[in-house]
Structures are given as C-alpha cells and as structure tokens.
C-alpha cells in the first residue's frame, strides 16, 4: 500500500479509535469530578473546581456571591468543611477573586462503594460466575466427549435437539423459567442464578468440534495401554484441548458476569443482588448522583477490562475462532 494510503488509514483508525474510547475517558473524568461542578455544567475532560475567594491580608476564604451591587457585593462565608460561617456580609469587589483549581475527587469512589453494598454485589457475582463456569466445563466436556468420540443410538439426533434449543433466545424462555423456578421455590435464591446455567449448549458444540479433531491413533494406543474411557478424557483429551477449555471458560465468565435480565427477574432481596442488578438499582435510586454513578460504573467494569487487557490476544482470538455468541 502506498505511504499516503497508509497515512489516511492511520488517521481514520486513530480518529474512530478515540471516538470509541471517549465514553470511557469521560466516565473516569466525571467519576473524579465534584458533583457541584457537574451540576453547574462544567464538564470538560479535566476535573476542575471553580471557587470564589475573598482575600484579606493574603488570607483566602471561600465565599458565594449572594447579590452584586455597583462596587460592593453581599456574600456568604464558608469554613473548610463547606459550612456557612457568616452570611450576607458586604465586601468590596476588589477583594473578590474567581479561582480555578485542578482537583481529583477520589472520595467519589469510596462514597459510591459505601452508598450501596457493592462489596456484597461483587461477592455474589463471583460466587455465581465461578460456579457456573466450573459447572459448564464439567457438564460440557463430558457431553462433548460422548458426542465426539462415542457411537451410540441417537447421537446426532440428540445433538441436533441441543442445537435447535440454542436457537431460542433468552427472552422467550424467561417467563416460563420464572414460573418453573417459582414452582421449585428457587426464586430469590442462588439456585435460580446458578443451576439453570450449569450446562451451556454452545460450549458443548465448541468442545465437540475440538474433541473430534483429535487423531484416532491417540485413543487407540491409550486403549491398548489399558486406559479407561474416563481416563482417556482426563489424561489425554482435556490436557491437549486446554486452550479451547480456557476459551470456553472466558466466554462463560464474561457471559455470566455481564448477564442482567435473568438475575433482575429472579432475585428480589437486596443481599442476593449481583453486580449488574445492584448497579441498575443504584442508577434508578440515585439518578441525580451522576459522579457517583460514573465511579460505580468504573469499578464495575474494571475486573473484566483488566482481565481483557492481560489476556487480550487470547480473548480476541477466542471470539474470532468461536465466531458465535449467545444472548
């Protein structure tokens, strides 16, 4: 490609790349901005606090202007905690100064974390995600092993049955699942969040493909050595398909961590809320606390973003090879 063409490609890619990340950049800058500044509409890309100061003998005091007249102004005085100390004081205009200060309000993160039990939400999410990832790995490798390497009646029929169920989107079976889980008495328990997700058709499909690709000679020689069927799965199949098992785990983890509609419907009590549901309630109940909401969004997406940055080649590669996702 010509140098000029490359130059244009870079310009476009960087421009659109910036457009893709600007929401995140602004999320972080708003998360460390003071709520007062946000409400005033001071929302550039830097957290800047605006003050009005009263200066007397080089001593500065924070004030707000109540009423301005020709050459003097009525003001309120504040102490360092933001409490009014003196009100309606008449001062001369020359002693008033507008000041801008770059200030990162780290306390927004702590305040958001304290406001609702985010620690509990994180714990619930970790419990639910890890249980279903482990469950999915176990049930899927067993099923995929049977589908890929065993001859039995109804193999392809059962497999097609699974695949056809995969085509049914979640909103379709959400209501009957609620009815069923309610009948089992599982609504508002961990069971409702974990047990229905202990098997994952797409993972079975993915593993079956990879188990099929293993050369038959490996199985033959293992059998001659007296290895049992389960022994072959445990000692040969799983170790050599480790990369795809990691891929499958990453998929299930991201899917489970980010799932929202299911836990929103199945859980009522606050202490069982997963992160996404807790964050959603926080955004409804405190919709005007925009800086705290940005702080909460920031720490909610951080674990997966960090995981992604550490293992990005692996994750992007997984998405590309698997080339399918399930809502």
């Amino acid at each position, binding site marked *: *490609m010509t140098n000029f063409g*490359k130059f244009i490609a870079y310009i476009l*890619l960087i421009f659109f*790349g910036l457009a*893709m990340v*600007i*929401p*995140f950049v602004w999320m972080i800058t708003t998360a460390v901005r003071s709520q007062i500044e946000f409400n*005033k*509409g001071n*929302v550039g890309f830097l957290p800047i606090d605006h003050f009005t100061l009263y200066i007397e003998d080089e001593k500065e005091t924070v004030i707000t202007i109540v009423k301005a007249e020709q050459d003097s102004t009525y003001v309120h005085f504040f102490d360092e905690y933001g409490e009014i100390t003196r009100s309606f004081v008449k001062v001369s205009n020359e002693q008033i100064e507008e000041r801008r200060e770059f200030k990162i309000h780290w306390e927004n993160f702590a305040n958001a974390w304290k406001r609702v039990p985010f620690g509990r939400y994180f714990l619930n999410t970790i419990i639910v995600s890890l249980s279903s990832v482990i469950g999915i790995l176990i*049930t*899927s490798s*067993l*099923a995929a092993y*049977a589908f890929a390497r*065993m*001859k*039995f009646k109804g*193999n392809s029929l059962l497999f097609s049955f699974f695949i056809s*169920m995969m085509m*049914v*989107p979640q909103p*379709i*079976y*959400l*209501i*009957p*699942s*609620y*009815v069923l889980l*309610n009948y089992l008495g599982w609504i508002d328990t961990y069971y409702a969040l974990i047990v*229905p997700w*202990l*098997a994952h058709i797409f993972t079975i499909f993915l593993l079956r493909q990879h188990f099929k690709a293993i050369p038959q000679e490996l199985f033959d020689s293992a059998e001659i050595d007296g290895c049992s069927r389960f022994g072959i799965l445990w000692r040969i199949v799983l170790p050599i398909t480790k990369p795809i098992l990691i891929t499958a785990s990453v998929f299930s983890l*991201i899917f489970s961590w*980010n799932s*929202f*509609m299911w836990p929103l*419907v199945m859980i009522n009590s606050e202490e069982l809320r997963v*992160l*996404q549901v807790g*964050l*959603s309630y926080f955004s409804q109940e405190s*919709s005007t606390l*925009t800086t705290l*909401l*940005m702080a909460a969004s920031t720490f*909610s*997406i951080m674990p*997966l973003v960090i995981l*992604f*940055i550490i293992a*990005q080649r692996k*994750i*992007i590669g997984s*998405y*590309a*090879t698997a*080339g399918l996702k399930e809502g």
Partner: protein
Amino acid sequence: MGKLSPYLYLLPATIILILFRFIPIVLSFLISFFEWTITGPAGFVGLENYHLILGDPDFWQSMLNTFYLVIFVVPLTIIFSLTFAALLNSITFIKGLLRTVYFIPTVTSMVAVSIVWRIIFHQQSGLANFLLEKIGIAPLGWLAESTGIFHLLFQGVGISLPDFLGGPSLALFAIIIVTVWKSIGYNAIIYLAGLQNIPKSYYEAAEMDGANKVKQFFHITLPLISPTTFYVLIMTTIVTFQVFAQVYLMTGPPIGGPLGTTKVIVYYIFEQGFGETQNLSYASAIALVLFMIILTLTLIQKKMEKYVHY
C-alpha cells in the same frame, strides 16, 4: 456399562437442558394459551392472548420501535465494523493496540455502559451537548426527545414532514448509537478473521491490472467477504431484536422513555410480565410472536445466503 456409558456422560448436561431449557420452551406455549397467574393455570383461553396482541397499540408501537432499531443498527454495524476491519488489515504498526481499543466495549457490561451513556446524553451537563455546543449547535433533548430524527433534520431546513416519515425518536436514536458502538468491536474481529482468509494473490493480480485500493475493496474484498457479512447480518439482527438493558437503563424506570418511543419489544415483554400487571400469559404470547419473527428472519436470511455466496 459399555452400552450405558455414553448416556452417563450425557446425563448431567441433558438433565439441566431438558429441565431448564426444553420444559420452559414448551411451557411458554402452554402459558400463552391459559390465563396463568404466578400460582398456576387459572383457565384455558385458547388464542385469546394472540387476538389481544393484534389490537394492542402498545404492541404495535414497540414493534415499530424495534423495527427502527434493527433497520438502523444492523447496516451501521456492518458498515463500521467492515470499514475498521479493512483499515486494520492494511496496517501493522500499533495494529494490536487499535484492535484492543475497538474491542473494549464488547467485554464491558451493557448495564455499566448504559449508565455512562445516559449521563453522556444528560441534557444540562452531558458530554453530547457539551461537544455540540463547542461546534456551535444548540443543545438537544436526547433521551427526553420524542420527536423523530428526520422530523428534526428537516425542521432545521424549514420543511415540515408528516408524522409517519418522522423516523425513530431522538431518544431511540441515542439508543441506536449505543447499540452500534457496543457491537462494532466484536463484528470487526469477525470481519478481520474473514479478511485474513482472502488470498493475497488476488490483490497482487488486481494491482498489476492497475486497480486502485477503492476498486479492489469493491471488486475483491466485498464479494469475497460476503459469507462473513451474512453471518454478521443474521447474528446482529437476532441480537438487536432482543435489546433490553440499554432501554431499561437509559429510558426505563423511574423516568421512562419519551411517549413510549423507546419501548422495544423485549422491554414490553418485561413490563407486561414483571411490571405492575404481572400478566404472564400475555407476556408469553408476545415473546412467542417475537420468536416467530426471529425464526422467520433467520430462515429467510439462510435461504438468501446461497445466492450471494461466491
């Protein structure tokens, strides 16, 4: 043991899938044919729920909104992700970094990014109006604006459009922006994988014949990538029909979307089934109508695939 063993391996997955996938799917049909409260069936109503759907203006409004969403999101996603993939494919330096940047929205939760975008579209202090102001455009109502985007555009040049040509409301358009932004990364990666499968020799031959980059893109890349485009088309359509979180978080309770112009079909199902009315059977009937639509579209798209395949 030998004969039984395959079934033992299949047992755990099959039990879970029969119990929590197959039974609910069958149950959803039953629920839609009965008057069903949370305690169980309370009387057979046959096709009554489906009959009600036909005359339900809220259902048709949410179908229209969903239609707008799909008609905008799917082509925009295809255009952007193919463009980015083609550009990424033509460079080597910082390719990995740029790929990462485009992909980050894919791994972040829809809930968190919807909250972020809701604040971006904040009327007084949002980034969207802040940037518009910088380039000298008056602030917009965004998530509170029920007027159609075509209506707004033509109003700007002094033409008043009839209502039915108004297009999606500005609020729904904001949701379209978020949905496209979120889906670009994943699809760009799928396209990138497809592009790497096109033999370099085709481009070299075209180069010899004097075809420029633009010609190469339209005469080699576009036709050869068409199977990937069909995959992206099908998947994005199916996923867009199921949009929920961004609508719920950006225009859901407690404020709600402007005049119901952002209420999409899955949001309507949720509202009917789990809102104040808890009308499970009606919600189930709507869900099955949605399923039929998705199924039909998938079959049509699959049928058409043969004709565009190279």
